[in-house]
């Protein structure tokens, strides 16, 4: 199924990068949570009113009153999608295309393991490292909330939103991984996967600014992650969530099968 030696090697090679991204996310998460102020109307809101477009673009327009709405409104709109997306782009490239580009793929394939096994290991590594990131970020948010505002965070809603967030990560991960499997040059793989991600984020931001561009939301996969819908436990939001998981997993599967059949210039 997978190769443990390679899996361990990937942890050794990539944990630093994961820690750095988790560190940045820790900073944002604790900062946002600590800005929540149940009594006095929050300071971010005042800021939001002074520059409504900017806040709207980041999906922070109508942030609700509860801690859950506050946290998800400010964090899950852009910070927890854009930052992990950067991590995903870099990691996806490191896991496949880079080995092919510089030729060291020879040594990953030097044993009795099939190509599929090797590349599946890389996919598993990506997914598990995203699980680690998610569990960590959830932990940070939850602990900061409990510390500063005990019992304020509605746990079930929080878990639902994170289920959706992970779906989005899997989708982005799948797309970037597929790019990494298709192209033999790092540059191309990184270029195309970042183009896809930047496009998706930009279109999402524009679609949130005003009614004029609202329909653009149908042109970006980011819309599939409906924070409000998941908080409200709407079935439509769950269907979109399932679509993200389905499409993401499909991309991983296609990536593996592309890699199995392609010519490797190594």
């Amino acid at each position, binding site marked *: 199924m997978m190769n443990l030696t390679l899996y361990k090697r990937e942890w050794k090679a990539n944990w630093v990068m994961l820690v750095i991204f988790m560190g940045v996310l820790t900073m944002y998460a604790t900062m946002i949570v600590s800005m929540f102020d149940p009594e006095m109307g929050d300071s971010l809101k005042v800021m939001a009113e002074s520059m409504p477009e900017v806040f709207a673009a980041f999906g922070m327009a109508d942030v609700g009153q509860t801690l859950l709405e506050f946290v998800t409104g400010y964090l899950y709109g852009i910070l927890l999608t854009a930052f992990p997306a950067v991590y995903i782009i870099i990691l996806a490239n490191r896991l496949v295309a880079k080995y092919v580009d*510089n030729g060291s793929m020879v*040594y990953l394939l*030097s044993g*009795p393991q099939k190509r599929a096994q090797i590349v599946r290991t890389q996919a598993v590594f990506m997914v598990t490292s995203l699980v680690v990131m998610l569990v960590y970020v959830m932990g940070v948010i939850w602990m900061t909330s409990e510390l500063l505002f005990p019992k304020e965070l509605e746990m079930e809603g929080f878990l639902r939103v994170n289920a959706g967030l992970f779906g989005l990560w899997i989708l982005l991960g799948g797309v970037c991984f597929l790019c990494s499997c298709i192209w033999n040059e790092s540059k191309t793989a990184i270029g195309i996967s970042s183009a896809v991600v930047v496009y998706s984020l930009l279109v999402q931001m524009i679609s949130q600014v005003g009614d004029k561009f609202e329909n653009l939301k149908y042109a970006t996969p980011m819309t599939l992650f409906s924070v409000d819908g998941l908080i409200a436990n709407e079935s439509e939001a769950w269907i979109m969530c399932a679509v993200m998981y389905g499409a993401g997993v499909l991309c991983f599967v296609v990536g593996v099968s592309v890699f199995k059949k392609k010519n490797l210039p*190594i």
Partner: protein
Amino acid sequence: MKTIEINHITKDYGGRRGVFDLSFQVNQGEVLGFLGPNGAGKTTTIRQLMGYIKPDSGSVSILGKDCFAHAAEIQSSLGYLPGEIAFMDSMNGMEFIRFVAKMKRMKDLGRAPELMEQFELDASGKLKKMSKGMKQKIGIVCAFMQDPDILILDEPTSGLDPLMQNRFVDLILSEKKRGKTILMSSHIFEEIEKTCDRAAIIRAGELVAVDSMEKLCSGKRKELQITFAEEQMAAAYVQAFDKAECAAANKRTVVMKVGKELDAAIKQAGNYTVTDMDIHTQSLEDFFLHFYGGDE
């Protein structure tokens, strides 16, 4: 069943690059040299043997198994040294060797320590900082450490100093004695001459010859340049030995291309006073041109 079989493979990259209708075999226990100028298609052929690329047409097999479909199974009896060697830069040499051993499912490091000693390799430094020759040695260690029955080596001595090139030749000779089947590509005729039973020669993606070493060597020429004490001696030499001609630059010097006639050429020169002599082995390209009658 031949150990390595290449049957009419074509891999066309356009613009006459690639390999075209190439066929040859390597027998069990044989060392086959694979010669050709830059861009001839040696690496392209070897990549097909390794199952990295699929031929457009034709078939390649090792131990009777198709190289692309059964690449993973073949790997366990195969050692490979890539022509453009690259490692994971973040590792140090020893870590990398250990990693490769584990990927090959070896219980320990196999022959690695012995090989490292033989090639005077200190693998403790970071791979990224290693010199070309050191990297080449790491590649050699990784190819041989499992003690595989078949070895495919793409320009194995590139980057090695002359001393290490000799050690490598010794290694190949001892592996040959132990019955290994080896395919190695090279630009250096001498290296192939010393080690191989047969050689395949390829140019512009097409096979020009596969033959035993003796047959190929009989066509090999040396360029001989003799300088005599006086101009008349040179003139007399040219008269007596029809292969020779006067050099354009210096009337006292004669040049000639000789093969089997070497003995006659030297003995003839002994009749006069020789002040200087140079022998150049022909470059591979010259050799091909001479032996196979030019670029028709």
